[in-house]
């Protein structure tokens, strides 16, 4: 470990006041507006945020595919803007949209990748063999990439990101759309990597994924980091218990607002948010256990039905809600229709 550059000395990834704008004039889109991020050595770090928050742009800047308009980018002690090749040697990047050569077999693609990282032939072939067994690719690695399923492609891409044994592995939504088995296999490898000293940075819009995997996380919204820390600390810092209230399985907005007014008046209730994504359920933050009984009484006095009334400790979803004022699901729904896939492909094209 001591040979690894930058070990123990400060964060292995450092982004300071990163700004990135796509396009010009009126049609310019500001993807990052002063993003700061510090990823400690040897941890599994999760970037959490809805689609369009700036996660992919951040990772593409780290992978030296994009230059920010302004800001400082340091990876493994190197300035990524001054020494991009040094960063590329130390960083593995697993993109979200996996571009494979349909005509090559997975093994041939890995060999090409190994040559681009200048691995000596023997070492290259040895590592490819190890990765094939590690990621369970024996059965299909010599078939052409054009025949692979999503899970196979993602495993192959993970292998190609690991071929040069990077200090830092960056993954963009590594398990989106995957079957449970592939997802578990990838999670296991990511944990092993972290345990062996590799710093892993992954983006996700799955709360459970970040909750299950990450030692540290940052919530990105609108091109900025709005909260960062260890998941337990962030949850503990919220305080109070969480209560989800549904008067009906599927309520509507007027009813939800009516109930909101009612429970807001209840002593011990700190905050009430209408969760549109969950059939207009209400998310409450309450002081202590007695409040739930109090709520039940008040609701029955107002002769309102109760479909569900559940209490829990704060979750990562609550951390997100507290930081952004809406649930991650709501944020997802808000941007779902407003993205321009064609423009985004153009941004990624050289």
């Amino acid at each position, binding site marked *: *470990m*001591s*040979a*690894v*550059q930058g070990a123990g000395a400060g964060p292995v990834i450092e982004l300071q006041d990163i700004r990135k704008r796509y396009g010009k004039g009126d049609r310019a889109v500001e993807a990052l507006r002063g993003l700061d991020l510090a990823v400690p050595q040897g941890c599994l770090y999760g970037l959490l945020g809805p689609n369009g928050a700036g996660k992919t742009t951040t990772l593409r800047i780290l*992978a*030296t*595919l994009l230059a920010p308009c302004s800001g400082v980018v340091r990876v493994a002690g190197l300035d990524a803007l001054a020494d991009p*090749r*040094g960063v*590329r*040697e130390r960083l593995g*990047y697993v*993109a979200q*949209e996996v*571009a*494979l*050569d349909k*005509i*090559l077999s997975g093994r*041939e693609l890995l*060999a*090409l*990748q190994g*040559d*681009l*990282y*200048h691995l000596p032939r023997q070492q290259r072939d040895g*590592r490819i063999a*190890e*990765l094939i*067994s*590690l990621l*369970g690719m024996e059965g299909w690695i010599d078939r052409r990439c054009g025949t692979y399923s999503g899970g196979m492609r993602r495993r192959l891409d993970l292998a*190609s990101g*690991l071929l*040069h*044994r*990077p*200090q830092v592995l960056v993954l963009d939504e590594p398990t989106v759309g995957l079957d449970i088995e592939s997802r578990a296999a990838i999670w296991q*490898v990511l944990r*092993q*990597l972290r345990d*062996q*000293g*590799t710093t892993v940075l992954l983006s996700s819009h799955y709360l459970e994924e970040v909750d299950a995997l990450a030692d540290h996380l940052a919530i990105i919204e609108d091109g900025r980091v709005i909260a960062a820390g260890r998941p337990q600390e962030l949850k503990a810092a919220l305080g109070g218990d969480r209560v989800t209230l549904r008067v009906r399985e599927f309520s509507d907005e007027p009813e939800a607002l009516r109930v909101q007014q009612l429970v807001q008046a209840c002593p011990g209730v700190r905050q009430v948010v209408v969760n549109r994504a969950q059939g207009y359920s209400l998310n409450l933050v309450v002081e202590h256990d007695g409040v739930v009984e109090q709520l039940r009484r008040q609701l029955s006095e107002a002769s309102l039905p109760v479909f569900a009334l559940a209490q829990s400790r704060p979750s990562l979803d609550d951390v997100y809600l507290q930081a952004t004022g809406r649930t991650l699901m709501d944020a997802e729904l808000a941007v779902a229709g407003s993205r321009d896939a064609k423009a985004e492909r153009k941004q*990624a*094209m*050289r």
Partner: protein
Amino acid sequence: MTSAVPSLLSPDGSQSPPRSAAADLAQETLALCRRLFLQLLRRPSTLVAGVLQPLIWLVLFGALFANAPAGLLPDGLSYGRFLGAGVIVFTAFSAALNAGLPVMFDREFGFLNRLLVAPLRSRSSIVLASVLYITALSLVQSLAIMATAAALGYGWPGGGGLLLVLVTLLLLVFAVTGLSLGLAFALPGHIELIAVIFVANLPLLFASTALAPLTFMPPWLGWLAALNPLTFAIEPIRAAYAGQFSLSAVVLQAPYGDVTASGCLGVLAVLAVGLFLLIRPLLDRKLS
């Protein structure tokens, strides 16, 4: 999933032994080249079509003008023998004009980003691999056409003549490959690139001395043909086939004056170098 894990998944802290830049460049360029050739071997339709099309030109056009009036062609040449040089050049030209297509598809599908994430010693290896691949491909296709033409009785250039043919084709292929690679980075997508290739291909053939001599053309077309780079490739090859092989021999009597074989080669060389200098800033910007 057991014993191999520790070494494999830990970061490589060892300083790899210093390697020369040349060794790195060779490794990455060869690897990129190998990929292009594997694609060609597994999808040989490009290779086959590239030979078949000029072959059809040779047979059909040769037959169409077989009874051309005597005196149309200089020195009582048969039309088939006259056409041979044009079709050889057209073969190499078409192959080189398509050089940008694989690069364009790599841009569009994001495979290029995979290459750009890697610590390439120089990103010129991406361009170099394309040039090597297209050069080899177009020479193989041209040689196939030359062999077929020889079998049809249209002749074969002697030792020195063959060298002249190959040098001429190389210069032309370099120039056109540079143009095509430049277009592949300048245009927004493969639809536009194919459109440009489609529009450029046939007019350049017709406005050259591939199908008819300058003396046969109206003056304006003669001027066009005498300025067309394809003509500068066709005429030395035609001279080589005629057996009158000398670099200082006049091979093109253009409206603006006589051009020797070495003059033609000079024009092609300047064109090739000029085009690569022209596209360099574009490549630097797109690959930086």
